[in-house]
């Protein structure tokens, strides 16, 4: 079970003065249960890439295979695919439209053709799993705070019970607390249900703590792909394209320069702490 991208290219406004080659020859394999971070500068093609994964955008050339099936096949049910690969857009709170939060969250499962009862059951579970208190559920979604709205919007996608969950910059415009809450919820979904998760972000600090694999995009191509440790080892190349490794990576490098025996790579605070304590115990 996997998503495979084979030489995918995408060109916006092809054959006009505004032509933009947004994806260049992307080859990618995403396995079941992975927790992946996609990072890159604004305009590097992250959003374009993920919209291909659920078939919303059609590659200009190249193929995409979901669980071994070509999603561009004529008889492939792409509407169903959108339910299996859930995509939460950037600023998803802008898509809310129903009179109550509960009705808005049931929109997805209803579109999947489920009965009212089943749809509501799914909405119930989804709202529970994003941790929105029950006394909000029958209020208008427009009365909520920014972070709460965003959780409702995420619940709206979760209610379709996707196998893969993709979030496009889910923390954009949130305060540090709102950011941690959302990312912790997402990490919990990964742990508890072993859901495949793809987290798009332009902030290294955000994703480094959570993900198992990092894909770095630059100008429409995949520049690096590996564990956070492997990726951050290339911190100089990352800087050259306007991305920075987490602060802690720099600290470890400085320590090494001063002759303290720590491993060169650490991606999270905990890892670094362990390593530094070890070095001083010796």
């Amino acid at each position, binding site marked *: 079970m996997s998503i495979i991208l084979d030489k995918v290219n995408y060109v916006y*406004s092809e054959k006009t003065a505004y032509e933009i080659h947004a994806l260049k020859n992307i080859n990618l394999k995403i396995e079941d249960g992975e927790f992946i971070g996609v990072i890159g500068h604004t305009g590097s093609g992250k959003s374009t890439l993920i919209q291909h994964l659920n078939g*919303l955008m059609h590659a200009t050339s190249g193929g995409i295979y979901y669980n071994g099936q070509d999603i561009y096949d004529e008889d492939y049910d792409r*509407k169903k695919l959108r339910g299996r690969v859930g995509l939460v857009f950037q600023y998803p709170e802008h*898509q*809310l439209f129903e009179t109550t939060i509960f009705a808005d969250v049931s929109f997805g499962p209803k579109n999947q053709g489920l009965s009212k009862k089943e749809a509501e059951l799914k909405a119930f579970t989804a709202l529970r799993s994003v941790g929105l208190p029950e006394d909000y559920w029958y209020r208008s979604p*427009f009365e909520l705070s920014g972070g709460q709205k965003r959780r409702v919007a995420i619940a709206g996608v979760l209610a379709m019970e996707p196998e893969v969950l993709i979030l496009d910059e889910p923390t954009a415009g949130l305060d540090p607390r709102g950011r941690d809450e959302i990312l912790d919820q997402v990490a919990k979904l990964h742990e508890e249900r072993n859901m495949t998760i793809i987290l798009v972000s332009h902030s290294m600090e955000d994703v480094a703590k959570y993900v198992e694999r990092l894909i770095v995009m630059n100008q429409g191509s995949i520049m690096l792909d590996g564990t956070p440790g492997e990726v951050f080892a290339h911190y100089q190349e990352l800087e050259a394209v306007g991305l920075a490794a987490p602060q802690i990576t720099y600290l470890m490098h400085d320590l090494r320069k001063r002759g303290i025996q720590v491993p060169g790579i650490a991606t999270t605070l905990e890892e670094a702490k362990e390593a530094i304590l070890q070095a001083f115990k010796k």
Partner: protein
Amino acid sequence: MLRDITIGQYYPADSVIHRLDPRTKLMAAMLYILSLFVFQGWAGFAAVTLALVLMIALSKVPFGYMVRGLKAIAVILIITILFNLFLTPGETIVEFWKLRITWEGLKNAGFMAVRLTYLILGSSILTLTTTPNQLTDGMEKALKPFNKLHVPVHEISMMMSIALRFIPILIEETDKIMKAQLARGADFESGNLIKKAKSMVPLLVPLFISAFRRANDLAMAMEARCYHGGDGRTKMKPLRYKKADIAAYLLSAGYFAGVIALKVLL
């Protein structure tokens, strides 16, 4: 999808026409449109055609790009041609059932088609080579005299440029919301009329909310920068005529006089 609408869109290029003052281009476009209604006979036809070909060549906008704007008027064009073709009395060429095609009808239909096509092409040269901002700037300055008559020229042109600025933003927004709802399994295409209308709700509600939010933000931002209307306001890029503009004015005036002369003399 929605972004591919080309009518009234700016095409960036570096040409003589792009560099002209928007007022000059407005004037020239107006004269050209007038000439389309004035010209008569083959000589006149040759004159307007020559002028159009020249302008298209000078503008450096690919012809194929320009022709796309014609699709929008295809229906009107066909109806006009049919009416002229069948409903003009005169010397009959062919006749079947109750319909009759005459020489005069054929000629009228031909000229009408030319007029309409040239009209669209001519005015699209204006919009393709002038950014909406330049266009409203030019209009504001050209219409300034009306300020004396208490016509709020600045306010009208400000509203126009804001509206124009918002069209692509709203199109983009529609595109985004549509995709977001599609990702939640929405279906905008199938079903009967009522079902289709209903399926627009998840699109229209967020769109309206976003339009109001943007309008609010913009008003706030303008007030925060002490915007207070047109009095005493200066421009970052004030419009000034250059030599090319004078030449363009003379050329278009000469052209227009020529078309009239052709009509009177021949």
